[in-house]
């Protein structure tokens, strides 16, 4: 007798569970799609998103602290000092190495390096992934001599 009962309850449960599943999928059919139309509509990155760095050159004092803090040595800084005048000649970050850990931004005494919202920096060449943040400057011969380039 139990076998018969199991058989019929199985048949019933088979139909019933299919109906329950269908009601769930029907609800999803009319819910709002979660698709982001990415290349057409750029997504808003959340605040504190750790993307490509934002560098404020005019505030930077060329202290190398960020480069020292970086665990993977991917920041390369070039500085020319002349008395009180500071020229940042080079501020390159190698995004092949960078792991967006934010450790470079925290110790900066001038608060001039931040994690930004940008993320579309893919490149077809290895060189293309090294981003140069400092505005290019032409250096005089004398300046070239005193330029200090540091990677940690």
């Amino acid at each position: 007798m139990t076998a018969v009962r199991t058989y019929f309850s199985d048949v019933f449960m088979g139909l019933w569970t299919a109906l329950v599943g269908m009601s769930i999928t029907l609800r999803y059919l009319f819910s709002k799609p979660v698709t982001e139309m990415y290349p057409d509509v750029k997504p808003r990155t959340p605040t504190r998103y750790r993307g490509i760095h934002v560098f404020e050159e005019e505030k930077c004092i060329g202290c190398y602290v960020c480069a020292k803090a970086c665990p993977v040595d991917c920041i390369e800084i070039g500085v020319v000092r002349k008395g009180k005048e500071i020229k940042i000649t080079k501020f390159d970050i190698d995004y092949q190495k960078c792991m967006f850990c934010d450790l470079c931004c925290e110790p900066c005494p001038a608060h001039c390096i931040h994690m930004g919202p940008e993320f579309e920096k893919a490149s077809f060449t290895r060189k293309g992934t090294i981003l140069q943040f400092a505005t290019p400057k032409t250096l005089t011969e004398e300046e070239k001599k005193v330029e200090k380039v540091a990677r940690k």
Partner: protein
Amino acid sequence: MSELAAVLPGVLEKAGWSVPGGLVPVLAMFICASIVAAAMGLSAAVLVWAERKLAGHFQCRLGPVYVGGKFGWLQSIADGIKLLLKEDIIPADADRPLFRLAPYLVVLGVFLAFIAFPVSEKLMVADLNIGIFFILAVLTLEVFGVILAGWASNNKWALLGAMRAAAQMVSYEIPMGLAILPVVVEAQSLSLKSIVAAQSGGMLRWYVFQPPFFMGVSFLIFFLAGLASLKRAPFDLPEAESELTAGFHTEYSGMRFSFFFMAEYAGMILVSGLAAALYLGGWHGILPGQSGAMWFLLKTAFLVFVMIWLRWTLPRLRIDQVVYVGWKVLTPFVLACVLGQALMAYK
């Protein structure tokens, strides 16, 4: 078709073409065949788009959005062009003639079945007096095509898929055929036209809603068995992507592949249309007195929607579960329905 053959000479005369009288029926046949073929291709294209779009929305996605404007209208045209341009590959070890024959057999079965497809009172190619029997008979041709495809590909996945298809389609032919019997008993006819005509007079006269619901249950069984014989999810074992690459059509590419594809979608329309005609009153509307091809197409579209809905709801069954459901659930239930309906007719 006979009506077309009757009006054709007049039309031809107006157009100024003289056609010998003997050729008129041939011409009418040709026209009907082209219409069926075009309708099949078109509806398959629309369905592929609808399925992708619905599949997307069922999963909170959008489906195609780029090709042809906002809703991706032209997606299936683009797919079609892509399939046409693909290289037609025949594996070196395949059995060439059989390999080539298989897709045609598959399409042929579905195509032939459309001959007795009752869109409306006037709009059917031929009102065969054994219409429903004929459709079931030619639909079995599809199994041959599938088995041939699997065998001739000389590929283990294809063969496994074909064997599953054979096991599944053969076991589901039986409940499918039997599910039709209560309707035939009630309508006292095998012709789809008279079966639909017997259901005129509003929704409550449709066979699904006839107490004591022998036909309602057999409608469910017919629909499920139809799903299985179409190899649609949750019965899509013959082409189970995750296990068998693409099942019986693993080795097919380009146009030959698209034949299998087209046959599947045309088959969906066919089974939905048959279910609509047999159980849901065909071209009769919800209220008494309403009728027209519109109603039939609406019901068919709804059933096709349910098929797509089921596919994106249920996971694939195991082969033993499929055979279990076929032999141990559907068949006894449908036999009980046939018996009950027959006893009711006898009294």
